[in-house]
């Protein structure tokens, strides 16, 4: 059933509408929320919403509980290829838990929190940005790792990144909901403005697997991916940033293990026809992020690499 959960009047004959597809089956009381579209340039979650919606609607008898699907928390951003909220400076994922007395965006953020709080699980799907390609992964604040890692391990993804707490991240949707005892997993996968179907299918399988674990899904689950899910707490995440401004040519695909000394890309100068930087790994590791947008400045993130060795 399609429900409008937030409706805000716009100046000329239009409303900002945040809608959900609410699917209920059986007598189970658990509620799982799948949310995406906070950033208007991240579209991987659209595929998940469609696939889960289609699948559950055709097999409602196997559902035992409620799954609420929210494809667009920032509908105007998605429609206008705008990462943030049009007419609003701040990143939407930096204003939670919102403020009922604040600006329209802060008010909307507050209403979203009120809508989602109390769910048994929220899966917040992101797809990096237009600059970086990410392997399917879950990101977890170390403060909530104890609760969330066992759930995240069921999601059938390649990597679980347990990261340090940072004050600025306290204003994300996931942090706010977790603070309200609503367990929330953040999925990052693929790249901005694109849909990677293979990743989408991998996560759909993982969501069914997690739903089954929680007793919300009685149906079968497609075969899980081969190979283990890497948990970051056993090692170290290295960031590789550009040492030169130029054009980045990747020489490795993401989701690859690379050896020490291996060339993973080059930064080149198209005007002078020269190579400005050979980008090599100092230590072997699993490349779980790689630069997607070619133009770089000094400091631009080129790759993130996980290595099984404590720093």
């Amino acid at each position, binding site marked *: 059933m399609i429900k409008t959960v937030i409706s805000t009047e716009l100046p000329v004959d239009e409303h900002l509408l945040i809608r959900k597809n609410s699917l209920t089956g059986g007598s189970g009381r658990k509620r799982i929320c799948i949310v995406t579209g906070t950033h208007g340039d991240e579209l991987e979650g659209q595929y998940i919403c469609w696939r889960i919606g289609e699948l559950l609607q055709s097999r409602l008898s196997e559902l035992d509980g409620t799954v609420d699907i929210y494809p667009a928390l920032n509908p105007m951003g998605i429609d206008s290829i705008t990462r943030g909220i049009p007419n609003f400076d701040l990143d939407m994922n930096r204003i939670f838990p919102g403020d009922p007395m*604040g600006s329209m965006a802060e*008010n909307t953020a507050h209403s979203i929190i009120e809508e989602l709080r109390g769910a048994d699980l929220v899966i917040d799907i992101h797809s990096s940005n237009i600059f970086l390609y990410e392997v399917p992964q879950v990101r977890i604040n170390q403060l909530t790792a104890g609760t969330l890692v066992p759930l995240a391990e069921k999601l059938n993804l390649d990597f679980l990144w347990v990261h340090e707490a940072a004050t600025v991240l306290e204003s994300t949707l996931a942090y706010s909901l977790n603070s309200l005892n609503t367990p929330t997993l953040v999925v990052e996968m693929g790249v901005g403005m694109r849909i990677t179907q293979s990743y989408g299918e991998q996560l759909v399988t993982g969501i069914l697997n997690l739903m089954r674990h929680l007793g919300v899904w009685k149906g079968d689950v497609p075969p899980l991916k081969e190979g283990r899910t890497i948990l970051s707490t056993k090692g170290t995440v290295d960031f590789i940033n550009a040492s030169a401004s130029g054009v980045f040519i990747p020489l490795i695909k993401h989701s690859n293990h690379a050896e020490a000394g291996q060339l993973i890309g080059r930064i080149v100068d198209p005007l002078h026809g020269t190579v400005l930087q050979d980008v090599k790994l100092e230590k072997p590791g699993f490349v779980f992020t790689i630069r997607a947008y070619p133009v770089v400045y000094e*400091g631009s993130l080129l790759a993130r690499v996980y290595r099984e060795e404590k720093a």
Partner: protein
Amino acid sequence: MKRELLFVLPSTFRDEFRIQGFRFGSGEKSIAIVGAMRGDELQQQFICSQLVNTLQDLEERGDLVPGHEILVVPSANPFAMNIGKRFWAMDNTDINRMFPGYSLGETTQRIAAALFEQLQGYRFGVQMSSYYLAGHYIPHVRMMHTGYEKPELAQGFGLPYTFLRNPKPFDTTTLNYNWQIWETQAFSVCAGQPGHIDNDSARDIVSATLRFMALHGIIKCRTHPGYYSELQLEENLITVKARRAGILYCLVRPDESVRRDQVLARILDPYDGSVRWEARAPEDGTVFYTPAKPLVHENSVLFRIIPN
């Protein structure tokens, strides 16, 4: 005065990105002043340019008090200003959300780190800033409530109001917040609208900054005494929000006294001109903020009022 190149970043397709500083005097690092951090902060850049001009004049007259160093950085983001963007043009990140910066991090983290290194260690730090809500407002000074702030110092600018803000998580990466944490008394001086230069308010802010410097014995300069600045907690401002969307027909201006229940604005239907809703003052007070844009969304902030 020494004109210095504080930071250079090569670009593949454009000229070098440069941050320039103007240093006056030597000795105690007394005050650092920063202008445009965003590409549409023309007012802030203009104010700094006028300060550089005035300080040069004072220097030639021998009116800079010996033993004090003054640093003015009119722009930390000329690349955005030159192409009409607000944020860092490549990835739309905000330099003023990257402090204290990270010299090995992303590009705008590196810019923030390099800038912060130059700005650290000063007794006073002044950021010419734009108010976070775009619109008209009473010029004022803002300080973050970090536990290190001394609001009575901010009153020395002699602007009508001094606001103290309890920082939200996203404030912790601003220059103002980090200056405070690193033991500089930091002030954000707010005047003017993004994308515009307003001569009158610019002149007032230049005077306020000179007044502050004269008060602390950094320069010899006689300005008019300014206002007795009233200290307000930002959370005490009354917010009037739009209950309907439409065309805003505003009936009051900043600095105007209003009575409880007075009509402040009408929101008109954009098709037939009928009145959809009237915004009224919830309390007696002084209008602090009004929006600049004629179209308003439901739930957007229309007015902020300083209660009597």
